[in-house]
């Protein structure tokens, strides 16, 4: 059984069909890439899958305890709870909060806490806080952010902010991680580091990753399978090798000219 099963997903905005009858799936611990020209509907698909927008039609199901469960109509926070975590194309951190708090917030729904114990500062409050803090710091260390735990998130450098978003997503203990253009705006060295990090995430946390990215080098190096979108429709699906040689894909990217794309 696949981890995520999406059938005939469609989204209309007014008269515009942003996503048109897209079906896709992701297996456990698979790394899938979603590529396509600008405006092809990639981010809209992320928004539909994570519940930010409601689909016009189609179904989204996630494997929970060995059974597929429908995610349509669930609120975003509930979907996150069920194991879908994401980053955003335009970074969305909790800017006024510290790096550490950004990560600890993501554990909110995973840790039970009695409000009375919080307000009265009972020992159990400190216990749980320490647990969460230790866990958060461990995650931050993996992404080389441990030195900035007490800084305001808005004071971080751009590359650090992108990494913090990934750490925050991982702190929700997801089954499936959505990365929306994680390498955007990064230089080649940072991109290489990011590529290594994504590999590490998949191995260490044993989770599936779906990735939107324009950097083809990164995509070809990481992805086990690739979906190609154009004008909201899937035009190709396959392993990196197949996609590289697919005439449809080359046409979509280059308007038919036979240029070296990859």
């Amino acid at each position, binding site marked *: 059984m696949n981890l995520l099963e999406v059938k005939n997903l469609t989204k209309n905005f007014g008269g515009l069909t942003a996503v048109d009858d897209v079906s896709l799936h992701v297996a456990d611990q698979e790394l899938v890439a979603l590529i396509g020209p600008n405006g092809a509907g990639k*981010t809209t698909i992320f*928004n539909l899958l994570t519940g*930010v*927008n409601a689909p016009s039609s189609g179904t989204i199901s996630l494997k929970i305890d060995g059974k597929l469960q429908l995610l349509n109509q669930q609120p975003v926070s509930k979907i996150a709870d069920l194991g879908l975590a994401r980053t*955003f194309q335009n970074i969305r951190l909790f800017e006024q909060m510290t790096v550490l708090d950004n990560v600890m917030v993501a554990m909110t729904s995973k840790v039970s806490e009695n409000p009375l114990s919080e307000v009265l500062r009972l020992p159990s409050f400190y216990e749980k806080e320490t647990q969460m803090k230790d866990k958060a710091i461990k995650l931050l260390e993996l992404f080389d952010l441990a030195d900035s735990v007490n800084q305001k998130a808005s004071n971080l450098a751009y590359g650090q902010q992108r990494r913090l978003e990934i750490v925050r997503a991982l702190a929700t203990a997801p089954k499936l991680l959505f990365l929306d253009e994680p390498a955007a705006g990064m230089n080649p060295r940072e991109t290489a580091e990011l590529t290594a990090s994504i590999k590490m995430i998949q191995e260490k946390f044993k989770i599936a990753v779906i990735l939107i990215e324009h950097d083809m080098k990164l995509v070809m190096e990481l992805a086990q399978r690739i979906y190609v979108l154009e004008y909201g429709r899937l035009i190709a699906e396959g392993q990196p090798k197949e996609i590289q040689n697919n005439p449809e894909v080359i046409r979509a990217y280059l308007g038919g000219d036979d240029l070296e794309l990859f």
Partner: protein
Amino acid sequence: MEELIQQLFNGVFLGSIYALLALGYTMVYGIIGLINFAHGDVYMIGAFIGFFLITNLHLNFWVTLILTMGMCALVGMLIEFLAYRPLRHHGAPKITSLITAIGVSFLLENGMSFLFGGDSRSFPQAIKLVNFKIGFIHITNIQLLILIVSIALMVLLQFVVQKTKMGRAMRAVSVDQEAANIVGIKVDQTISFTFAIGSALAGAAGVLIGLYYNSLDPLMGMAPGIKSFIAAVFGGIGSIPGAAIGGWLIGLIETLTFTLGISSWKDAVVYAVLIVVLLVRPNGIFGKKAGEKV
């Protein structure tokens, strides 16, 4: 039934005043996102100016109306220049501007009380009251005047905003101040002009209400101020037809509660209807839905 229809007419007349005031709120809010709390007090200032022009200078009604509108426009521009512009240039948080607006409102109310006393005085009868009877409906010439002047001003305003160069600048600034600045629109001047127009309308409303109710006092702007802001919210802040519809809606609700014998619940009904409207249409009746792009 006759009583009801009569009250509906009264509601439209009263609503016209709210609509005139709501236009000022909606324009200022539309352009700089500020609830201009002092707007209701500009209306009070308008009533006072009208009072002095008629009583002391013995000017006729139309001259008074136009002079008052001009002077209120100046007052509005002055308030914007002294109180709001410095904050805008500093990029102060919106809530700071709001508190400043409340401060300006307090200042106008208490300053006028201090200068002219807090008692209410009676507005001179600049136009002789004439009663008409159309069928069973009683209408006065002053009520008709209010309706006609209000509608004329609204049409004029719609024309200015939609068809003139200044109107285009106003619309551009309301969408994006920085972008407007880049394409050569004088942002400060445009905002100043918006305050001038809004305040002129408030001044007109002040003179008209003085004529209608025959009385004025320094705190007369408080309640209509809040109500006409609600009218603007009803219609969708930023929308000129919305403000007009909202004004009439509130006028109608108020007079209808009177007919139903629950006038002590008047404001509660207005608020209840408002909350229901907002829950169904979170940006008012004509408001545009502004979803956040993810």
